Each structure stands twice: as structure tokens, then as C-alpha cells.
């Protein structure tokens, strides 16, 4: 099989598993809407739409975190990762496939979150959608690698946010900048730069994280 054939097969497995078990996605959808409702009560009534725009990014990052903590749950519980590592495919294909499925879940969660945000708080424009898409790539790339690390530790779910949040700060900066700034272009560019750098780094280093 080719590299992308492997990736497609692995990603299909993740999505099929999710379609059958419905473990993660409903939780993410419910979580992101609940967060937005909580934010409504957290914001003072006279605060601006800009503050709501910032909080949308908090909601996105934490929803992604929720999905990422579950990303390797099935592999860990069924000891599947050993089998995957032994399979005759490039290890980075595992990362790419997992990243793609994480991204798919995140996109579905945002397909609910953005209309809800527009309904509750402020209109959503094309720039915001572009920023969200760019941010998703970075979040999925870095998050998948860190989730694999956290899955190998004793602390597991506890560890992932600690590893992930410092690395997510630049994503927040780019995203909030693109949402609130007058000239969003450079923030979008920054997000793209982040995606490129960390995707390459994660792609190259995933093998070291999963092999014994």
C-alpha cells in the first residue's frame, strides 16, 4: 500500500470506530455549546463583542483538548498501538491519520460552535472561518503528537492539557488577532507559519514517541 493508502485506511478506522461507539463527538458538541452558554454568564452584560471573540477561541481550544484526550483511548485500552507500530507502514502515517480524524471531529464541533456563536454573540465572517481552519491544522498536528506522549504516561488525561496549553498560546494569539484586529492578514499568516513549523516537527518526531 502507498503511504496515503495507509493513512486513509487508518483514518477510516478511527472514523468508523467513532460512528459505531459515539464516544467522543457527541461529548465535544455538547461541551462546546455548554461552554458558550457559560461564557454568556461569565461576560458582564456591557462587555463588547471583542471579548466574546476571545472567549470563542478558549472554547475551541478546550473542545479540541477534550477530543485529544480521547484520541488514543481506544488504542490504549485495547493495546492497539503496539500492533500499529509493528505494522509494515511508516509510523508517521499513524500520526497523519490520527491527526486527520481529530481534525474531522474538531471541524464537526466547530460546525456547531460557529453558528451557535453567531446566534448568541456576534456575527461570524470569512476571516474567522479561515482562522479557525488554520488553527485546527496546528491544533491537530501538535495535539496528536502530545496525546500519544500523554497516553504513554501514568498521568494520561491529566498530563495532556499541561503539555498542550503552552504550545497552544501562539494559536490563541493568531486566532484572537485574526478575529479582533483591523488587519487580520498577518495573524492568518502567523497561523499558517505555526502550522507549517509544528506539522513538520510533529511528523518527523512521531516515530520516536510511539516506539518502545
Amino acid at each position, binding site marked *: 500500500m502507498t503511504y496515503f493508502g495507509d493513512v486513509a485506511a487508518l483514518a477510516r478506522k478511527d472514523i468508523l470506530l467513532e460512528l459505531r461507539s459515539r464516544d467522543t463527538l457527541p461529548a465535544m458538541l455538547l461541551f462546546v455549546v455548554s461552554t458558550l452558554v457559560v461564557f454568556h454568564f461569565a461576560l458582564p452584560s456591557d462587555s463588547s463583542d471583542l471579548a466574546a471573540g476571545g472567549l470563542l477561541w478558549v472554547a475551541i481550544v478546550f473542545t479540541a483538548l477534550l477530543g485529544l484526550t480521547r484520541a488514543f483511548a481506544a488504542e490504549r485500552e485495547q493495546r492497539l498501538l503496539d500492533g500499529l507500530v509493528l505494522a509494515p507502514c511508516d509510523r508517521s502515517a499513524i500520526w497523519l491519520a490520527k491527526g486527520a480524524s481529530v481534525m474531522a471531529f474538531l471541524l464537526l464541533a466547530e460546525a456547531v460552535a460557529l453558528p451557535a456563536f453567531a446566534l448568541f454573540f456576534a456575527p461570524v465572517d470569512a476571516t474567522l472561518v479561515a482562522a479557525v481552519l488554520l488553527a485546527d491544522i496546528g491544533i491537530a498536528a*501538535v495535539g496528536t*503528537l502530545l496525546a500519544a506522549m500523554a497516553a*504513554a504516561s501514568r498521568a494520561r488525561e491529566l498530563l495532556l492539557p499541561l503539555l498542550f496549553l503552552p*504550545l497552544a*498560546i*501562539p494559536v490563541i494569539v493568531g486566532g484572537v488577532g485574526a478575529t479582533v484586529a483591523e488587519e487580520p492578514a498577518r495573524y492568518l499568516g*502567523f497561523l499558517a507559519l505555526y502550522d507549517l513549523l509544528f506539522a513538520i516537527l510533529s511528523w518527523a518526531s512521531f516515530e520516536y514517541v510511539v516506539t518502545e
Partner: protein
Amino acid sequence: MWLRNNRGVALASTAALLLLGGISLAFFWVPDDVDQGFSQRIFYIHVPVALTAYACFGWGAWKALRLLWTREVRYDLESYTAVHMGVIFGILTLVTGSIWARISWGVWWSWGERQLVLFLVLFLFYSAYFMLRYSTEPGPRRERMSAVYALFGVVLIPVSFLAIRLAEGFIHPTVFTRDGPQMAGSMFFVFCVCLAGTLTLAGALYANELLGKRVDASLRELEEALA
């Protein structure tokens, strides 16, 4: 021969000499800064300590890269010790920077000070490095995971710096710079002495810590062999 066996002692005494010399020069020889007066002298500690922290993180990442490259176990301990030193100097940077902010602007913390914010992000990042290490079973996988995380750190430093600069665009519309007039020759000289001092101090601490950890590891092996 003496030098080879007592490298730690030699490094430590050099560091002590350089730091004592640098601090005395900073206190008694260098002229006052035009804008900030006497308090500007904390610059001779704060900035060298910050640069030393970067050097430690860089050194740790270099050792991490060597580990992934060669798979030699000794690089794991070296990388870990370097990151450890980096965090210590990073905390010192936060403390001295906070004192400086208090004296200059009357507040203990300013989100407008890029270096300080960057060190806070790095502090959080590298604290998670320790969490990762302590919650994973020792072995080749832990070594490689720590190495990958340490490598992420050196990529995160410039990316975060850029992010913090960009964030000022919407968090702080007015950017204030502290860069006053060009540094005078005498100031630069004292700064270099202090920088050499903190770098040597980091080297001495690194050598000492590494030696201690290696002795610990050998002792444990010996105990296991005897048991």
C-alpha cells in the same frame, strides 16, 4: 591533569570570580543610566541570566537531538540536566524582571514586557517537561519523548516571541520600548563580564548536577547487582 579531574571546582571558582567582579563593576564603576538612574544596574544581572537560560534550553535541545540521532543513553541525562538548569535560570529571570518592573513602572508584572511574558510561557512549557518525565516509566521511550519535547521547546521560543509581539497589536495598542540611548562601551564591557559569569555558573551547576546524577545511577546499578 588537575584541571581535568576538578573541572567542576575550576568552573565554579571562575564563575564566582567573574560574577563578583561583574557585580562590583556594575555597582561601583559603571555610570548611572541617563533615564533610569541607579536601578538600571539590575540589567547586568537580569539580561545575562535570561540569555543563560536560553543557552541552557538550547544546549538541552542539542543534546536531545543527539539522543534521537545516536540513541546513546547518556544524552538523556545531559539534556534533562540542561533543561533543569534552564528552568532555574528562567525562574531567576522572572524574579529579577519582576523586581525591575516594580522599580521602573511601579508594578510587579507587566504584560507589555515581552521577555518576561515569554519566560512565563517557557516556564509553563518546561514545567510540563518535568511532569512528563516524572509520570513516565524510565526507559528508551521516556528518553525519546523527553527529547522530542525539548526540541519542541526551542521551536516554541521564537514562535512564542513572535506571538507575543503580535499580541501587543491588540492587547497593548501603545508599545513602549525601554531601549534608550545606545549602550556605552563601559556598560557593554560590564555586561559581557556578567554574561560570562552567569554562563560559567550555569556550566558549573550543569557539570555538578550531571556528576551527582551519574553517581546516583552508578550506585543504583551497584545496589541492584549486589542485591
